């Protein structure tokens, strides 16, 4: 039995003592590809921030059985200030840890890795351009490079398919499929239809988490998906549909 990367037990978190997520349980294994779905404001972003250590833990546990894994994070688009005067190269290099904290610059090896990464992503022409000059898809590509440059064991993507065209989306999914051979992936998405061929299991997040251990697209999974959509469209619908699938 392989060691899990992360074990979350009965965790609660939120903002300023207001609880947003409660009784969350989730185990992430090194080869997982979990699609995180749920209604707007359900707490998907809060969940990934809890895993990243950006959220205070009100109660419960977040454990790293084999040590804290290296994590790569692609935040949701609204968190990124596209008008900030930072170049593509600087953006991507911010994903690298400076080995020397006293004089935090990149060493020669890291610089070479950075050039490679930029070339792989086909962003050479934009390397020294400000991120404001990138298209939505190119920006997501740069943000993905930033998340990947430190060779993460866990890649966390928060709605990477917003503000991008269909072509980029397909390209992104091909990459993720390949990357999943080397790392665990948590993919937050509002569109399970397109990600379901990719993912291996589903976590539905709405105040709490319902894990659906399915690696195929089934009618059931799609039904699970309809719950959150209904919540957005018709106001609060209870987790009835979800609960029935919560059988572990």
């Amino acid at each position, binding site marked *: 039995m392989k060691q899990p990367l992360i074990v979350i037990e009965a965790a609660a978190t939120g903002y*300023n003592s207001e609880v947003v997520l409660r009784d969350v349980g989730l185990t992430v294994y090194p080869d997982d590809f979990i699609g995180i779905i749920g209604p707007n404001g359900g707490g998907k972003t809060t969940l990934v*921030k809890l895993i*990243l*250590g*950006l959220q205070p833990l009100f109660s419960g546990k977040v454990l790293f059985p084999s040590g804290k894994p290296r*994590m790569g*994070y692609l*935040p949701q688009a609204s*968190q*990124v*200030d596209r008008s*900030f*005067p*930072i*170049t593509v190269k*600087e*953006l991507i*290099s*911010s*994903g*690298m*840890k*400076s080995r020397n904290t006293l*004089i*935090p*610059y990149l060493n020669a090896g890291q610089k070479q890795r950075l050039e490679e990464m930029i070339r792989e992503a086909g962003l050479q022409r934009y390397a*020294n351009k*400000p991120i*404001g*000059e990138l298209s939505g898809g190119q920006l997501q590509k740069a943000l993905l490079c*930033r998340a990947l440059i*430190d060779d993460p064991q866990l890649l966390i993507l928060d709605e990477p398919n917003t503000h991008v065209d269909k072509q980029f989306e397909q390209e992104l999914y091909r990459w993720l499929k390949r990357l999943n051979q080397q790392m665990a992936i948590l993919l937050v998405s509002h569109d399970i239809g397109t990600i379901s061929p990719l993912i291996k299991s589903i976590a539905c997040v709405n105040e709490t988490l319902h894990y659906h251990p399915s690696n195929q697209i089934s009618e059931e999974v799609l039904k699970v998906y309809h719950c959150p959509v209904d919540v957005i469209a018709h106001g609060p619908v209870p987790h009835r549909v979800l609960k029935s699938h919560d059988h572990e």
Partner: protein
Amino acid sequence: MSDAFSIFQYQFFQHALAAAILTSVIAAMVGTYIVSRKIVFIGGGITHASFGGIGLAFYMGLNPFLGAAVFGVITALAIEWISQNGRVREDSAIAILWSLGMALGIIFVFMTPGYTPNLMSFLFGSILTVGRAEIYVLLVFAMLLMLLFALFYRPILFTAFDPEFARTKGIPVSRYRYMMSVVMALAIVLSIRTVGIILVLSMFTIPQITAMLFTRNFYRIMPLAAMWGIIGSVAGIMGAYLLDIPTSAAIIFFLTLQFLVIKIIMIIRNALIRNKG
């Protein structure tokens, strides 16, 4: 015309030029940080809160800039603390500190017995009375700033751009943000000497937005903003002398004029290019 240049032989004028150049360099670096993070309002809060320190120092017979520095730094740290731990809306908190500082300043100045000769010079600056010691203070601070940005450019940039991501990479974000709060406060308070409370923020914003007409690269905005700041403030000092108008107002006027002229030239140039193409 010979009249305009004979002024350079006076020591007070040389000091004024040195102060303008050094203030421009300081404001260029710190202002780039402020404009990039879109926290001009925080700068305003620090500036006006520091007036409370000036008033208190007057009342107690201390160096007013010491009072301003203490109030400025405390305000900056308080704003950063609220933004990190906020249960209060940050913008409301800033507005309160802003007006409270001004109110305290007015009360203390009112309570100070006798005439307070320099009050206007704090509101509007008095670059023509800057002394040698103050030039040295500005020089040392400018050099420390350059060293700071040279050593910590990357974490300063990353914690300003995306603090949450920076935290996931193990950068001590909170420490850097507090450090930059202190840096902002000191830079603003030191610049108040040159252009005064009412106009100081323009030194931290107009050269930057002028520079940003040419580049959107943080690293390049800093020297370019320094250049536009120096040109504008030296032109302002000369213009003030020739036209016999207040220096700080003339500096801001020239900085703005410079921005508008460049902006208009760019608009016309772009229109011409589009017509051709």
